[in-house]
């Protein structure tokens, strides 16, 4: 078991390394292959009416004149051992993990990301609670009353849920509930839960529901399918034959088996969301990791792009790892695979 865990962790770290190299290559190597010079890189970050000398100096300062490998090495070193940042007037120490400083705002990327994380975590976890509860409950009820009006209506709504783009449901709900009726927050504001839980929930409720609607639909369908499959299994028939009460059969035997794949998928979905719900955050102007990523790309802020990609990849890889390890605990055969 221990070797399995170690093997998987090493694998995860290697995966992150690959992701970082590919990302770095796309932003630093590909443009160069297309003919961009170090000065072209720097030209994005100079002010109005900058002289060619200024552009050249900035290219030096931001390190674009070094070979790409050296630039990548510097980036990795910053994460592992920290780095020093030239503020112009002096040097600022940036402790590990240092993902560099924004080329535009000159803020340390890592601090910015940590700053945005609570928003995304709030969004993802609140939405997750709603979608898991609503989705699983609907799925179980639908499966138990297969073919009923409830089942058809629920599955119809679920299918609608997965068929609507979140940026459409988001803006429609904003227009109706926030701008129109004024009963929910208009988006764009965030209060930490530690400061004021009520306001935190008020600000997040619409994004939660919008995001949860999308996922709940999928989970309801999965749960229903899973329940239908397990309830048809032989061991359920055996359990019933033993004379166990129906409630016990459903919860202890049926649901448990049906939920196993749901847990897996939940882990991965949640990991992906922690790395930024790009569309939801954009629609509701929430300053989370996803919106940070979009802004970084629009502004071509390379250190920020690298940082946010790594954070997102980290969550996905970590979620994968946790799910796999949990499986290994449950099912010893996996360890040998």
């Amino acid at each position, binding site marked *: 078991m221990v070797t399995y865990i170690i093997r998987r962790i090493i694998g995860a770290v290697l995966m992150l390394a690959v992701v970082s190299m590919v990302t770095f290559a796309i932003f630093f190597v590909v443009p160069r292959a297309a003919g*961009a010079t170090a*000065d*072209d890189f720097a*030209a*994005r*970050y*100079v*002010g*109005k*009416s*900058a*002289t*060619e000398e*200024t*552009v050249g*100096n*900035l290219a030096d*300062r931001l390190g674009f004149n070094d070979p790409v490998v050296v630039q990548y090495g510097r980036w990795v070193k910053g994460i592992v051992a920290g780095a020093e940042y*030239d*503020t*112009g*007037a*002096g040097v*600022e120490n940036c402790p590990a993990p240092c993902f560099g400083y924004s080329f535009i*705002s*000159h*803020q340390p990327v890592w601090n*910015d990301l940590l700053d945005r994380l609570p928003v995304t975590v709030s969004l993802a976890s609140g939405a997750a609670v709603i979608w898991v509860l609503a989705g699983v409950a609907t799925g179980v009820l639908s499966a138990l009353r297969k073919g009923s009006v409830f089942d058809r209506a629920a599955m119809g709504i679920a299918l609608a849920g997965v068929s609507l783009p979140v940026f459409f449901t988001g803006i429609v709900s904003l227009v109706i509930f926030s*701008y129109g009726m004024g009963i929910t927050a*208009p*988006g*764009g504001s965030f209060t930490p839960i530690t400061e004021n839980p009520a306001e935190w929930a008020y600000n997040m409720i619409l994004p939660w529901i919008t995001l949860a609607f999308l996922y709940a639909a999928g989970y309801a369908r999965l749960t229903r399918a899973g329940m239908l499959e397990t309830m048809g299994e032989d061991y359920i028939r055996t359990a019933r034959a033993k004379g166990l009460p129906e409630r016990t059969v459903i919860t202890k035997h049926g649901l448990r088996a049906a939920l196993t794949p749901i847990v897996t998928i939940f882990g991965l979905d949640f990991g992906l969301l922690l790395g930024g719900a790009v569309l939801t955050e954009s629609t*509701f*102007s929430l*300053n989370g990791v996803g919106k940070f990523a979009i802004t970084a790309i*629009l*502004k*071509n802020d390379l250190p920020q792009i690298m940082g946010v990609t790594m954070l997102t990849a980290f969550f996905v890889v970590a979620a994968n790892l946790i799910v796999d390890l949990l499986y290994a605990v449950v099912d010893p055969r996996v360890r040998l695979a």
Partner: protein
Amino acid sequence: MTKKSAAAVVAATAALALGLTACGGGDGGTKKTEGGNSGASAAKDVANGALEAVFNPSDKKGGTLKMAVSEDWDSVDPGDTYYAMSWNLLRIYGRPLVTFNPGAGAKGRELVPDLAESLGTPSDGGKTWTYKLRAGVKFEDGAAITSKDVKYAVLRSMDKTTLVNGPTYFNDWLDLPKDFKSVYKTPDVNTDQAIETPDDQTIVFHLNRPYGGFDYFAALPGTVPVPKAKDDGVKYRDHVVASGPYKFEKVEAGKQYTLVRNENWDPATDPIRKALPDRYEISLGVNADDLDNRLIAGDLHVDVAGSGVQPAALSRVLSDPAIKARTDNPTQARTWYTSIIGDVPPLDNIDCRKAVIYAADRVGLQNAYGGEFAGGDIASSLMPPSIGGWKKLDLYPTGTGDVEKAKAALAACGHPDGFETNMAYRADRPKEKATAESLQQALAKAGIKLTLKGYPTSDYFALYAGKPDFVKKNSIGLATNGWGADWNDGFGFMSQITDSRTIRASGGNYNLSVKNPEIDALIDKAYVETDTAKRDALWGEVDQKVMENAYVLPSVYAKSVMVRGTGMTNVAVSGAWDMYDYLNLGVA
């Protein structure tokens, strides 16, 4: 380009401005609202009420002024910003040598001394400018402000490798020693040949050539004093040291700025600031539509960007008389236009360029920028009307496109059946996208086929439309563009966008199409002309030449529909910024 709006003067000579200062010193604040008990909403809302006069004047202190902005903000460091909103706002925490008189309309375009006792005294034929600092002005930590702090601030703002955002006027005009690179890299180089500080109250600027309008330079945020000991380059923006009536309480980049009263600011040293609110709360990164809604609902006082409401709010604002009464609709010293790039055949032929202008649907272009209120008036020249020397040009029709004339021009240029070219625009700017779409439709009627190319705003000038190489290789014949004046005169508006010698092969150019030795010669004449009226006339001539040669297709002289938050006092649209003057707003 980052500059959101612009300063504009009609015809203020330095001397005239000096004369006006004498009576402008009291700021006309003597007339107060009667029965200030209700204070906040004493005045009746009226549309354009703050355009020409101060709306709801008051001297009542207290309260929190709530501001918000949805757009980006480069920096609040006075030496590192090029946004009009920060040039306007920073005066609540920083005092430049000279500044624009807080007041409505033309009054706001007057220069008045701020940190200095009076406007600059020229000598040596305008090559040397001397300012005396007021006595008793202190930083927020109680340290006295000396001329050395001003000198240091100016010199540091010139390090464009560290503080990249600000303007480069001091770099271009001060008589610097060759071996001076930057206050950070070459701190020991003697710079007295550029800026002298004979004593703690006196500062003397030496230029490399005469310039009669140096007071405009002295009004740049770069002259806001910075204590050398507290300067840490790019990080100074996180803890700017105040010299004005407010100081930063909290700086959360991209999220929020809060400012509170600076106890070390002495009203006796400051004749222009009222310092009414107790607090400023400025939220950043707010959803633009939400910002408008909050402004209309009265939860917010000011949209800092001052660029007007979003399209969604526009119809609501204009159709509801109660809200419309709370709007101001100033014309800015900014022109939105399309560069017609002569480097790309067949646009190297003047008649082909003219064909583009004739064929364009000028009403359609106005609509693209938001129509008559939110967009602006149809422009017939590059230079906007509030700039000295502007005259109405009538070279081209301004209707919905003249296909006949366009076809005649096409025939004259040897392409009677039209031609094909590409048009660049900033893909993430809906108004420019609409401009490109409108032109594509209108030009097609005359046989000119446009292919539209959207490029990201962040790289538009650095890598795409502003890079001559790229433009030629990709045959970009047209490119959307826009320019706002840095300040009130022809120099402040035209020098960056019509002088072909500013064009650099490495990119980052804003002048995409005006390349004409005749125009360059006119500009040189304007630089050395010391008589304001003659200088203005020269800039007017530059404008005319640009239009005659069909280098640009102007769309609109920009206007904006701004909503006054409820409960504000002392509201005035400053002629210097064409947005609310942030210096003397009150909420009590």
